[in-house]
């Protein structure tokens, strides 16, 4: 870096439910920027509450006078914070949430998503279902916006029949009813999006039920942090992700080993996203000062850094164009982890580019 100083405000979930994700994003990000003396990071815990997040954003902008905001995990919190922040002339780099509203009509020149548009992994799952030859799929997700986006994303690419489509209660942990419906539906495959504890419960109970129909899902229920808790029930399941520990490129190898050295655990998807966000920021700082907004924006847009995912660039609405891989859950010794088996969608962008007037 050539001495451009910059202050980052990170608002993420560090306490209460779902804090594992926030902690990973933070750790990944800090790993990326730890060697840079020009970046000052302020971290605050949003407790997964939108109102708190909004107030923290105010604080970061008004009192801390940060230049760049980042860190939010959840779409609903992002929706609460991002529009206000970018309208006040701050940059926002999303390390995780990518709600469609911010990709389409609500896109903004100062908003960059480094992870994915919310639909991406589900779209890839739809594509994978096609290429595997599934004809009759049963799909389910919780009844809330991200859940609906998930099923919409899947259906956008899936060409077969739907054996059933279920919205479950948010936070539901018992799936006997749904599993019975799956069994009765003659489906040849199941796609589900059930983040957090919901997915753990579903996978365990599904494995218990003795149904042999293959399952596909986005990486969220099969990622490093959570796999341990799902246990052997997850073995062999195909899931879609833009990143995997075994991606063969230099940046990723360095990231995985650095992360393990630093924190003593395997990195997760979220950690990689946090890390890439940090790397993107450093790459932009090398090119321009944040005080020159135009130049800095261009620097961000060029995404001139070695992503842990290999190929990485931004589409016109500032969301990644990247490969989405299909991974399989395997066992390495005693540890459950993922291995890439194919590329689900190549150089995949998102469905909202046209709606964005940028």
């Amino acid at each position, binding site marked *: 870096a050539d001495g451009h100083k910059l202050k980052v405000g990170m608002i993420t979930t560090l*306490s*209460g*439910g779902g*804090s*594992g994700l926030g*902690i990973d994003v933070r750790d990944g990000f800090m790993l990326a920027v730890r060697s840079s003396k020009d970046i000052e990071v302020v971290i605050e815990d949003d407790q997964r509450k939108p109102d708190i997040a909004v107030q923290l954003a105010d604080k970061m902008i008004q009192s801390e006078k940060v230049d760049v905001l980042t860190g939010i995990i959840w779409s609903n919190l992002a929706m609460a914070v991002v529009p206000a922040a970018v309208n006040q002339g701050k940059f926002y780099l999303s390390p995780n949430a990518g709600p469609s509203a911010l990709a389409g009509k609500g896109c903004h020149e100062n908003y960059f998503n480094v992870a994915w548009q919310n639909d991406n992994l589900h779209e890839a799952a739809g594509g994978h279902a096609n290429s595997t030859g599934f004809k009759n799929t049963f799909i389910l997700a919780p*009844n809330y916006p991200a859940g*609906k986006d998930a099923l919409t994303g899947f259906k956008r690419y899936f060409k077969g029949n739907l054996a059933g*489509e*279920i*919205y*479950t*209660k*948010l*936070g539901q*942990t*018992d799936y*006997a*009813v749904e599993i*019975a*419906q799956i*069994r*009765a539906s003659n489906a040849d495959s199941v796609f589900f999006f059930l983040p*957090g*504890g*919901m997915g*753990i*419960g579903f996978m*365990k*109970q599904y494995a*218990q*039920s*003795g149904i042999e129909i293959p399952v596909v899902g986005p990486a969220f229920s099969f990622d490093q*942090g*959570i796999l*341990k*808790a*799902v*246990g*052997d*029930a997850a073995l062999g399941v195909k899931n879609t992700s833009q990143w995997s520990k075994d991606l063969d490129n230099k940046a990723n190898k360095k990231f995985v080993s650095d992360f393990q050295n630093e924190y003593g655990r395997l990195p997760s998807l979220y950690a990689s996203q946090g890390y890439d966000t940090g790397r993107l920021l450093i790459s932009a700082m090398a090119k321009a000062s944040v005080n020159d907004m135009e130049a800095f924006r261009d620097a961000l847009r060029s995404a001139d850094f070695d992503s842990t995912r290999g190929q990485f660039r931004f589409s016109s609405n500032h969301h990644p164009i990247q490969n989405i891989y299909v991974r399989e859950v395997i066992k390495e010794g005693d540890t459950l982890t993922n291995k890439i088996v194919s590329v689900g969608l190549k150089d995949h962008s998102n469905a909202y580019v046209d709606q964005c007037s940028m």
Partner: protein
Amino acid sequence: MTAELLIEQFLNGLQFGFMLFLMSAGLTLIFGVMGLINLAHGSLYMIGAFSAAATFAFFNSFWLSLLASFSCAAIVGIIVEKTIIRKLYNRDHLDQVLVTFALILFFSELVRWIFGAFPLYLDVPELLNGSIEIFSGIYYSKYRLFIIFVGLIIAIFLFFLIGKTNLGIQIRAGQHDREMISALGVDISKLYTLLFGVGAALAGLAGALIGTIQSVEVGMGEPILILAFVIIVIGGIGSIKGAFIASLLVGVVDTLGRFLIPWVLQTVTNPSDAMSIGSAIGSMLIYILMAIILILKPTGLYGKQLS
């Protein structure tokens, strides 16, 4: 939809009912019988599940971890009772709500501090893995049958303990007038400690049993907390029978509602909307049920109306 599926879902409802009873059994004792509003019930549930998971990670034995779940929860329960809870019996409901709410904050953060933010692993033992065919075409998970079995045993145990022994009478008397029952020669503090311990143990056991097929994570106790209260209130405070029947009722209504409402709605609107409206109603269902029951019977199904 086939008749078999309907029957199977009905059975699932009953099964879910047993699970609910298991979740609320500890609270039935502490809240229903001792009259203490214990919001920390969910925390004891969580403590049970985490002790089980920790034990499992160490000894790799399901049965040992069950043992750990209720002993740890009982120990924590007794410590909490002796240091904090016993000062609350003579206070009004509000103080109880507040202190036990604080206990939730305390335990959730403490557990997260100790075990980290990620879910832990707990799985069904080999013996109970897989499912068996109970009718032609209807398969049932062995583990779920096991949960039903445990639920039944606990129901019988509680029913006898509270309804048929002097101990139960004394505890209920103490709920009405502690000073008086004590003046009649009953060591009510010890009884309450004991009972709180048993309630905590039941919560812990439920945490481990149910955590095994759901997920063991911080915050797992919160949704079940409200559910457990709903059940006891629907059943009528103080009635074991009420809690039992309410569990089954809620289980069946919730299950069938979630399954049937979207299906019925499909006849009037397109499947996708039907599904999303249906599940919106479905998630409100047990609260609607509770409100209706309380409006019709302000002291729950089997609650006593004191004059």
